[in-house]
């Protein structure tokens, strides 16, 4: 009979096992709880989640995907392993600690100017190129998954629903919607058109994040109506003209193409996206 365990107890156990100090609880994500830990003066993020049969392959895939990545804008994964404790199964990962907070918190604090938006865009687009070369699609790019290593060094985190294009999909075909955060998802994600998912899906998500930072609202809803924004994307509508005008005026007209309804209408290669974003 498994013993009911608090994730904090699991964190304490992991820290003891590795001679680390547990510094603070960093909060909870969709599946994992994060803790700040310290070892020999270096700080790390410890993430713990209970394992379920459906989540285990996702955790394994995340570990495999990140193990093959090495890019300044992709979070470093130091360790990712299952742990049996008290008859329970947990997934434990130790990642680099990104002390600069999330993009969402910076947006809320009004700390994101246009120059920073462009820097974030260029570095994360380069990260998408890195992922593309490895046949990986993040599928959940959103402000909460963009963290900062320093004042302006953006890093993409949380590869929990990463898609490996050269491995069988973990998403059931019958589902009406694929995994991802609807507000930042492309039409092919919202409609679970798995065969259309590729790096251009991430391009869409990144462009929505950047556009939102640049003009102050979700580009698909000048009205501020979140369900309407999702509905417009799912219906493969173009970015509303009002948003296009504001993006162009803010010097981010290049994002309009990146948010086109069909992947083929977006930038074909990351270098094209990067070039377009950098020359404005």
């Amino acid at each position, binding site marked *: 009979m498994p013993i009911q365990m608090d994730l904090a107890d699991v964190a304490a156990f992991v820290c003891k096992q590795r001679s680390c100090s547990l510094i603070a609880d960093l909060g909870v994500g969709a599946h994992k709880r994060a803790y700040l830990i310290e070892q020999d003066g270096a700080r790390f993020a410890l993430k713990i989640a209970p394992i379920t049969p459906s989540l285990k392959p996702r955790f394994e895939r995340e570990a495999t995907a990140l193990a093959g990545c090495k890019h300044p804008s992709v979070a470093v994964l130091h360790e990712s392993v299952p742990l049996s404790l008290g008859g329970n199964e947990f997934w434990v990962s130790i990642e680099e600690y990104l002390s600069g907070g999330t993009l969402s918190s910076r947006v809320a604090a009004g700390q994101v100017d246009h120059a920073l938006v462009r820097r974030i865009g260029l570095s994360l687009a380069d990260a998408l190129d890195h992922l593309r070369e490895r046949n990986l699609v993040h599928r959940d790019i959103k402000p909460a998954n963009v963290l900062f290593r320093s004042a302006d060094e953006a890093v993409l985190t949380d590869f929990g629903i990463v898609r490996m294009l050269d491995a069988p999909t973990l998403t059931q075909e019958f589902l009406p919607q694929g995994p991802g955060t609807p507000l930042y998802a492309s039409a092919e994600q919202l409609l679970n058109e798995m065969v*259309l998912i*590729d790096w251009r899906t991430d391009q869409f998500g990144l462009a929505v994040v950047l556009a939102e930072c640049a003009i102050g609202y979700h580009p698909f809803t000048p009205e501020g109506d979140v369900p309407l924004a999702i509905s417009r994307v799912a219906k493969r509508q173009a970015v509303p003209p009002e948003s296009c005008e504001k993006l162009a005026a803010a010097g981010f007209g290049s994002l309009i193409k990146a948010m086109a309804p*069909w992947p*083929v*209408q977006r930038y*074909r290669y990351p270098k094209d996206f990067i070039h377009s974003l950098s020359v404005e």
Partner: protein
Amino acid sequence: MAAYHQMGHDSWNLVGEDELRSYRGLVLSPVNNGPAEMAEKLGALGSLRSALDVVLDPQFYKPSSDRGSLPDWSHITNDFETADLGDIDWWADRCRKLLQEGERVGASSIASPAIIPRTFDPDYYDSVVACADLMDNMAQERQISTLVTVIVRLAEVAQPGFAERIASIVTRSRVNRVYLVFFDDGSPRAQRTDVDALAGGMRLIRTLESAGSRVLVAFSGLDMLLWKSAGATDVATGKFFNLRRFVPGRWDDADDGGRVLPYWTDDDFVTWLREDDVRLLLKLGLIDADRAAVNPFSREILELLQKHGGEPWVRLGWRQYLYWFGQREGDIEIGKATAREILVHADQHWTALDQRGAYLFERTNNGEWVRAWLNALLLT
């Protein structure tokens, strides 16, 4: 950018003819020659060879076919019926052999192997892209480039979103040249009149080209006007006009060699005319002999017809058509003429024919496609 010869039965003598110099490439078919013979024929082109882009179409469309010289090619195996066509390793072996054969004959490019599926769904195109990328990977070590073969049932591309969906999958490929085959059930010389399907086909071409793919539309005919108007970089056609028809029955037909009737390609009507209809239109003054004579083969045909000697002009008809194709491809490419201008002009000629109360002897040759094509241009 260029017209290509879609090589058919006994077509080598047309390559490099002075009047057909506008053709910049060849699409070779293993049905017509074995590898040794093909290599020899390419070698015999001498200095002309280096000026041509030579694409090998592996003809995997109906894998069980044993037509012509297909059995002489190592990429064609006899395990099609028992093989798991969903197994990428099986395709890897086909690609490897195909590259060997391509290198052996001296092809510059190879269209990736693709079968005609039971259903043209997104998964099919996904597998097509996987196969093309596989072949492209293998080709990196050789001096051969790859085209991704995309077969599209024209009726399906009429569906909203179909062109964009397929183009989204195809442009995922690292291969940015597309060998596009439009597939339908039409009969030879019957022009396509489904406006939505034609507009969808054009939209597919435009979408692919806009995304940076270079499209070669295979088996084109008079409808090349539409494909070029949509922005296709390259278009291919053959001396047998019915080559433009990519229909299921084409694998079952006996090789009709030179049995075809002579047809006149008329630029004013945008149609193919049988001899008795050419004579009729000449009498009615609806073929302007002087204007037609811009095409040197038209001039020769007219001279033959004036002699009333009953001399055959099948070979001249082939050349007249190929010359028309090459010239019009170039006209649209450089903006000297638009498909719309050519078709509006043709519509005026069909109207003039109606006003004269005349009927062409070939009943199905009624020009109805001209307006369908004009509307397809409008809807794209």
